[in-house]
């Protein structure tokens, strides 16, 4: 069941962690519905020829898991995503377990919004693969 946190239930400094993994099937599904069949995502050989060890997970797929965290946990059903920014640092591959760490860094009481900072890293070796932030309106406040 999704969270449905109200503005007053959210605290600056609050942290939520979520562990995720993608499969090759997930990449193929994303290629099918997004149309992004760029060779580094669609072809193992092409990806390897460009220096990657396998097909690279689309950055937008990673952000889809950030969306899941916002829409189901922090804050959950009360979320309305207004802005999101991400930097991608390292490639992510299928079957890599990764953790999304979300921290509320600002509460904007004037407009009942929160700014959430995200760090995304590989579980195995702690290498950071992406970082970013989002502005989320709490619409049941």
């Amino acid at each position, binding site marked *: 069941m999704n969270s449905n946190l109200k503005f007053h239930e959210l605290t600056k400094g609050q942290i939520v962690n979520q562990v995720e993994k993608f499969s090759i099937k997930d990449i193929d599904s994303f290629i099918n519905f997004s149309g992004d069949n760029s060779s580094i995502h669609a072809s193992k050989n092409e990806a390897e020829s460009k220096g990657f060890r396998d097909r690279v997970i689309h950055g937008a797929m990673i952000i889809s898991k950030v969306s899941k965290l916002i829409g189901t946990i922090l804050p959950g059903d009360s979320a309305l995503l*207004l802005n999101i920014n991400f930097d991608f640092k390292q490639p992510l591959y299928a079957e890599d377990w990764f953790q999304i760490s979300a921290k509320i860094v600002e509460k904007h009481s*004037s407009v009942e919004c929160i700014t959430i900072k995200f760090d995304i890293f590989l579980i195995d070796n702690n290498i950071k693969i992406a970082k970013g932030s989002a502005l989320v309106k709490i619409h049941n406040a």
Partner: protein
Amino acid sequence: MTKDIILEVLTELFISFFDEDSIQLKIDTTAKDIEDWDSLAQVGIILSIEKKFGIKLNSLEVGKLENVGAMIDLIYEKKS
């Protein structure tokens, strides 16, 4: 900071926010006068105002803002 200067700074802020050079704010300008000024844009405007002027507003104050003149009065009060 005078109210005239606040109006100038607000005008620059709106031009930048809406990416529309033709915006000329007046004290009686309302959301109806600027095409893209909807409730979501209002969130961004308020956050930009807080950052630009180094002030913190609350939801009650924001809810009472009926036009640019009211914005200027509130910013002036907070900066005084």
